[in-house]
């Protein structure tokens, strides 16, 4: 039976918070908004972002800078209508869809606008937290413009030079009326120059402090994260789970190939390498020369009494457990071990540190990577424990303002597949017909995939449950 007593990690029962973003364009607001949503959802808090820009885009898909001039009454009216629609939708979501944290993603650059939003939320009994990103570092702004201009839906198909110029013009229009948040009675956090100074005012509940704590760890410096499982281990070959085994000969070959595999994509970037404290990840990383850190929190999910058994053995020794785990894999806790939910809780400091850090390569284990991957790619809990993260493959994630970009690099080294699909027998040799295609998610798209969510039609391949699935070149 699934033991699910860890629900509600965060105290949310009476906190409905409207997080109102504040700041000029190109200050990383959408990035922050999107990350807050992802973080809270990963921790099982119902959160959603309402982007006023996308409401406005419905009427005005490709606006010019003049549209954003405050003296342009038509532009002003349309933008006001978009804000109105977004706020209305958000309030409806709180009320009817059990929303806990709604994020209003827009410039909200005037006191009048903020007062209006606050009144509407307070009238419904929701708390308001303003999150302002303030930046006067020109270099930071420019790098952010370059980032936004290449990915913003407003500039699809346009000349980048023109787009950049138009964007700066747009920002100037906002600057004319911009008022920084200093309302003494409002709850706010002001992030100045990406956290070099932070001002926190009138925080009134725990969930707010949690959100602020998280935003303080964010930065908008472009960077990537490289993820890899350890090379094939002796236990993988024997079909056993857990343990602290050494690498198999093919696993060692992967360790040898790893520096070359990531050489091109990492280049001369400054990378920190994290491993777990287990032999197989340390061995996998041994030829990489980056600064290394070992984290206990990156150790594989603890399978308790099942540690060191094969799936066949688990199925025969603990048939009920085997079934129960498939019923609710996220919440199922191995006898004397951990559940995915437990792992998420222990990974929280890791995620925080990953947000805080820059270029990081992580060599760790299947369940751990599923949780980390689910965080960055917004994978829901009923799917994340079932994702296939193949051996001998490096996944590169690059967080962008409008989603996380993914690339995969496969080493041409065969390995066993440790993947077992839902409700399949433990014997991974035969029974191909048992794969439930809806449940198997293999978001392996080689090349760029700019999206926070993986759609079923983007699934490259359904994994075949062969005991030894060699990975093609």
């Amino acid at each position, binding site marked *: 039976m699934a033991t699910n007593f860890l629900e509600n990690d965060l105290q949310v029962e009476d906190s409905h918070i409207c997080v109102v973003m504040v700041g000029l364009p190109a200050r990383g607001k959408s990035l922050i908004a999107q990350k807050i949503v992802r973080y809270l959802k990963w921790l099982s808090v119902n959160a959603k972002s309402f982007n006023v820009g996308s409401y406005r885009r419905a009427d005005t898909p490709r606006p010019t800078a003049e549209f954003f001039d405050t003296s342009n009454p038509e532009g002003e009216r349309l933008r006001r209508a978009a804000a109105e629609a977004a706020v209305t939708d958000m309030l409806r979501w709180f009320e009817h869809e059990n929303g806990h944290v709604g994020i209003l993603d827009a410039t909200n650059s005037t006191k009048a606008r903020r007062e209006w939003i606050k009144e509407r939320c307070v009238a419904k009994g929701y708390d308001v937290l303003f999150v302002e990103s303030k930046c006067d570092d020109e270099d930071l702004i420019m790098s952010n413009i370059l980032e936004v201009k290449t990915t913003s839906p407003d500039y699809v198909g346009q000349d980048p030079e023109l787009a950049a110029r138009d964007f700066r013009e747009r920002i100037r229009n906002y600057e004319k009326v911009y008022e920084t948040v200093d309302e003494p009675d409002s709850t706010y956090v002001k992030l100045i120059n990406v956290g070099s100074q932070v001002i926190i005012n009138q925080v009134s509940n725990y969930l707010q402090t*949690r959100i602020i*704590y998280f935003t303080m760890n964010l930065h908008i410096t472009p960077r990537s994260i490289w993820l890899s499982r350890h090379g094939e281990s002796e236990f993988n070959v024997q079909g056993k789970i857990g343990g602290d085994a050494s690498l198999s000969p093919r696993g060692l070959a992967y360790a040898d190939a790893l520096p070359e595999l990531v050489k091109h994509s990492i280049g001369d970037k400054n990378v920190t390498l994290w491993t777990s404290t287990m032999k197989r990840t340390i061995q996998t990383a041994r030829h990489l020369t980056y600064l290394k850190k070992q984290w206990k929190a990156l150790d594989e999910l603890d399978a308790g009494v099942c540690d060191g058994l094969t799936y066949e053995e688990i199925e025969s020794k603990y048939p009920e457990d085997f079934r129960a785990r498939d019923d609710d894999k996220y919440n199922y806790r191995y006898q004397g071990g951990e559940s995915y939910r437990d792992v998420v809780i222990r990974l929280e400091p890791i995620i925080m540190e990953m947000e805080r850090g820059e270029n990081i390569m992580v060599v760790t284990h299947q369940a751990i990577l599923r949780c980390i991957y689910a965080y960055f790619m917004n994978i829901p809990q009923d799917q994340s424990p079932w994702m296939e993260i193949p051996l001998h493959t490096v996944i590169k994630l690059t967080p962008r303002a409008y989603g996380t970009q993914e690339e995969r690099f496969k080493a041409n080294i065969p390995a066993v597949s440790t993947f077992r699909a839902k409700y399949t027998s433990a014997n991974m040799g035969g029974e191909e017909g048992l794969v439930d295609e809806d449940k198997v998610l293999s978001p392996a798209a080689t090349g760029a995939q700019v999206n926070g969510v993986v759609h079923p039609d983007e699934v490259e391949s359904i994994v075949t449950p062969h005991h030894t699935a060699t990975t093609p070149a």
Partner: protein
Amino acid sequence: MTLTVDWFDFASDYDYSASDGTGNSLLRRKSNIDIDAIHNIPLDSEMAPAQLYSTESGRLFHSGKIAIVTVGLPARGKTHVSVALSRYLRWLGVKTRAFHLGDYRRAHMGPGTDVPHDYFFIDATPSSVKLRQTILQKCRLDLYHFLDHEMGQVAIYDAVNPTSMGRKQLAKEFMKHDIQTIFIESYVDNPKIIEENVRSVKISSPDYQGWDQKDAVKDYIARMNAKIPHFETMEEKELNYIKMINAGERIIVNNCRFGYLPNRIVFYLMNLHIKSRQTYFARAGISSQDDSYKADGDLCEEGVGYAKRLGEALLENRNKEREAFIANGGSPEELKPLTVWTSTRRRTVATATYLQESGFKVKQRPQMSQLNPGDVERMTERQIRAKYPDEWERHQVDPYHHRFPRGESYHDLAVRMEPIILELEREKNDLLIIAHESVLRVLYGYLMACSTSDIPTLRFPRNEIVEIIPESYNNRSKRIPVPHTNPKGVYVP
């Protein structure tokens, strides 16, 4: 060491030998769980209650050595912040120790001797400067010893540190020792907060016995202002600092982007306030399905009677304490209302019904649900030994970290309750917590800095309410009897 009159941090009515550089002042007998152990030095081999992992260096979160330096005039809550922070960091497993400069000053001067009048002046006489340096030196040597030779990770240096120049020099000196410095300033410009602070922690000394409270507060503040005429608030852009304004109303964090730990500290400080309030712990009444985790039974008749006696005993005690407080010249505005927290389990909620009907606010906290006993639920010791001999063996060796099949360990419970710890700090009202014994053990363990070997054996019989009284320097615990009740919660005439 007896209390002497010191005008700077003399909230320190405690017995702590600060000049013992070896840190061997284990004052509390290990098993005396009624005394707050926050100033004891934990054994190296012991894991902290919510510690997730250990390392050879003893340092966690990939942070190096850190000095947290307090800044602020007296009666701004500095000592409170440093003690609270050490409590929290230790709970997380970070080896933390607070060094209160006032202790060193008192130890150096000896009983009954005050420092020279110009001790804190910028233009102090050479002899005062020399005295200052001697005292500082001793404190810093202890601090370095702790960080370099005792596997210490965070040293909290609790002093006034009033000048910008002094702070810059300090950060430079620490940097030479490979120590990162974070300043925490307690800045207050609301006179009400200062007065309340002076009243609650500063004038309880024998010196002000027989004084009218208002006069005592005035006198203390006037003497303070004369003593430290010069104070510069933190504005040094190049230093790492956290400025708490008016007890956390506003927090300014400057330049603190260098690790997990500084941000974690800010997170904690966001929830901390310097107002003191009481916490009470009480067990839930007996239920129709007592001791069953899964059944979630309601209170039985005996339990309903207990709930009423519990509520009455608490209210009566609060009335007495309030009367005493007012009789001592306390202001009625400083009295805090009572809030009740229960878990979401039925019998804890039902135990609060009497108080709820009397008009008190009751909040349910899902994280406070009891330790999940797993497969050994409702089993006797003999049954467990027969069915799980190995597990039983392991449980005897380490009852804090061991989890029975399908169950939770105390460690799991502590980690899951961390949000409650922060909420507990955040709560401004007096607080009654009605919960299962396992939950009370963990919370009590946090507030009284109990070791992991003590926590699983703490006792909360139903004939007592445990009250935790916060003091600036340490917490005190007190037991309030619930009349006509035996330890099991059954009525006795």
